[in-house]
């Protein structure tokens, strides 16, 4: 007989003394063979990891998609809008800005547009028959005609206030205000009751992403507000559109320009920052879902560890046989650790794919652009592999420590 691998073969003795050897290329087929022989169990134990990874990938993907959508929206609106408001938290009367503020601000070089609104101490009603308490939480402001342009807003219906219409009882409603009042016409035929006077609705605004406070507002001209409703002329808020390159410079001088005598009484804010901050606040929920995903991953890892411990008990004879065929303790532990890593890796890959699909599906329902980054998918699979390695550690060590003669005993 001659297969060419006998001790007579040159170098066989030195090989034996050098120790047993398992080619790395042979480790994978051995581990895969151990998994495919029990397909249902392997699938179920990989499923736990898949659920955990899918949850984490989807949560991160959806949040990234939503954020990138918001950034795109803000960019479309322009990130060069600033607002100026009074900063007098302990004022006894309602806090206002100096009358001169809008004009002074408009004279700052890089400022392209500035428009002010002011308080009107009145409420708006559908008619004079409505009880005074039913204000619908709509605020009434006077507004300068340039406001729409400064905000780069759009009209849903009708037109915005003009220099002419500010002298007459005409009102422009925010979209929620119009909805609350039940008004869907802006041709001047619909009237609302403001502070004992009838005002004709001449415009309904579209939603203003950068000035959501105006969505529930009724805007009238400043002259008519002073004349009919005895409103003050001091503004409560000035919207400022600047040259995009000069936003920080303008931001730095706005307070002193608006109120040179008391710049500390002026607050300057960037609505885009406010929106992103609000978005960031939702990461509290994101953290919760991530934690849920991590728990699922942990449970999946424990499941794999459990399945591998059972496999070591069930496959004692195989372990004994492999030891008899020349496997070292290290080869046995490598085999079982590789099986655990393969299970977790397969679960992780499936989970990452499911998470990406869930992200794409969710983004599609919102008409967003789905953001699924390859590095994050790779990281997810990497986490799964690490979980598998941890889960396989104990069973692998137990398998390796089994004395071969005992492992070969029939149970």
């Amino acid at each position, binding site marked *: 007989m001659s*297969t060419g691998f006998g001790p007579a073969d040159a170098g066989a003795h030195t090989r034996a003394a050098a120790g047993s050897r398992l080619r790395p290329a042979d480790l994978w087929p051995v581990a895969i063979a151990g998994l495919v022989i029990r397909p249902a169990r392997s699938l179920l134990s990989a499923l736990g990891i898949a659920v955990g990874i899918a949850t984490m990938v989807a949560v991160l993907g959806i949040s990234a998609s939503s954020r990138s959508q918001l950034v795109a929206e803000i960019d479309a609106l322009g990130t060069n809008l600033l607002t100026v408001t009074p900063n007098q938290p302990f004022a006894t009367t309602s806090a206002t800005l100096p009358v001169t503020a809008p004009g002074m601000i408009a004279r700052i070089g890089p400022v392209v547009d500035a428009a002010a609104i002011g308080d009107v101490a009145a409420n708006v009603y559908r008619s004079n028959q409505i009880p005074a308490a039913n204000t619908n939480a709509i605020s009434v402001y006077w507004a300068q005609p340039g406001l729409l342009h400064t905000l780069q807003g759009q009209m849903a219906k009708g037109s915005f206030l003009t220099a002419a219409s500010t002298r007459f009882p005409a009102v422009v409603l925010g979209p929620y205000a119009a909805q609350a009042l039940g008004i869907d016409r802006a041709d001047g035929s619909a009237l609302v009751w403001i502070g004992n006077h009838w005002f004709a609705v001449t415009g309904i605004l579209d939603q203003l992403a950068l000035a959501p406070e105006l969505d529930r507002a009724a805007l009238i001209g400043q002259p008519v507000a002073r004349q009919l409703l005895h409103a003050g002329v001091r503004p409560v808020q000035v919207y400022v559109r600047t040259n995009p390159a000069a936003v920080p410079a303008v931001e730095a001088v706005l307070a002193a320009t608006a109120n040179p005598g008391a710049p500390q009484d002026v607050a300057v804010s960037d609505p885009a920052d406010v929106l992103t901050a609000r978005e960031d606040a939702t990461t509290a929920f994101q953290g919760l879902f991530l934690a849920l995903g991590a728990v699922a991953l942990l449970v999946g890892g424990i499941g794999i560890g459990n399945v591998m411990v059972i496999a070591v008990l069930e496959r004692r004879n195989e372990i004994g046989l492999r030891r008899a065929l020349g496997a070292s303790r290290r080869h046995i532990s490598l085999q079982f650790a590789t099986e655990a890593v393969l299970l977790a890796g397969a679960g992780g890959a499936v989970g990452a794919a499911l998470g990406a699909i869930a992200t794409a599906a969710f983004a599609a329902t919102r008409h967003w652009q789905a953001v699924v980054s390859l590095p994050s998918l790779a990281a997810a699979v990497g986490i799964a592999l690490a979980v598998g390695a941890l889960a396989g550690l104990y069973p692998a060590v137990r398998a390796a420590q089994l004395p071969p003669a005992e492992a070969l005993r029939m149970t």
Partner: protein
Amino acid sequence: MTALAMTDVTKIHPGARPVTAVSSVTLAVEPGDFVAVIGPSGSGKSTLLALAGTLERPTTGSIRIAGHAVDRLTDREVAGIRAASIGFVFQHFFLLPGLSALDNVATGLLYRGIPGSHRRAAAVAALDQVGLAHRATHRPAELSGGERQRVAIARAIVGEPAIILADEPTGSLDSAAGAGVLAILASLNERGVTMLVVTHNPDIAAAAHRTIRLRDGLVEHDSETA
């Protein structure tokens, strides 16, 4: 070179009441030998085989396999000696259920770092030697008991080890299948394969060149030295 040499080997299983399974056994198996180890249950036959196969380490005494003293070797080195110099045949075959007969035989070379294509080529030759070339693609579940044991024998000889250690190779087989397995062992021995067989089967004992009878861990009778 002596295939297996045991010198004053004693194995005491520790515990609350230590058991002396093998006591001061000295024996040598030369290349080409066919040795049967017989004796009643509990006489230490299986422990002797496990010691000879380095599956257990002796409490005292020394063991050499194909010239290698195994006493002070590391786990990896001893595993290397099993991979290169020892072929095992077990009563319960221990074939891997997911693999074909051919792949089971090729597994006999897995831990010697031999590439897969070479392993399979050698496995084809070994299967042929046990008369199962036509069953190469069958899974163990599709084979009879006798065929399974012949696949296991092919797995033991595929690496041309210095010695084959068989533990009750016919113990799970009916007499016809047992006779077939014995015929294969005998024909392998005729072609030079060295064998140490632990058995209750009187036919194997009769076919062997030499019988060693154990009782209570001691060599009671050795046909060579008697």
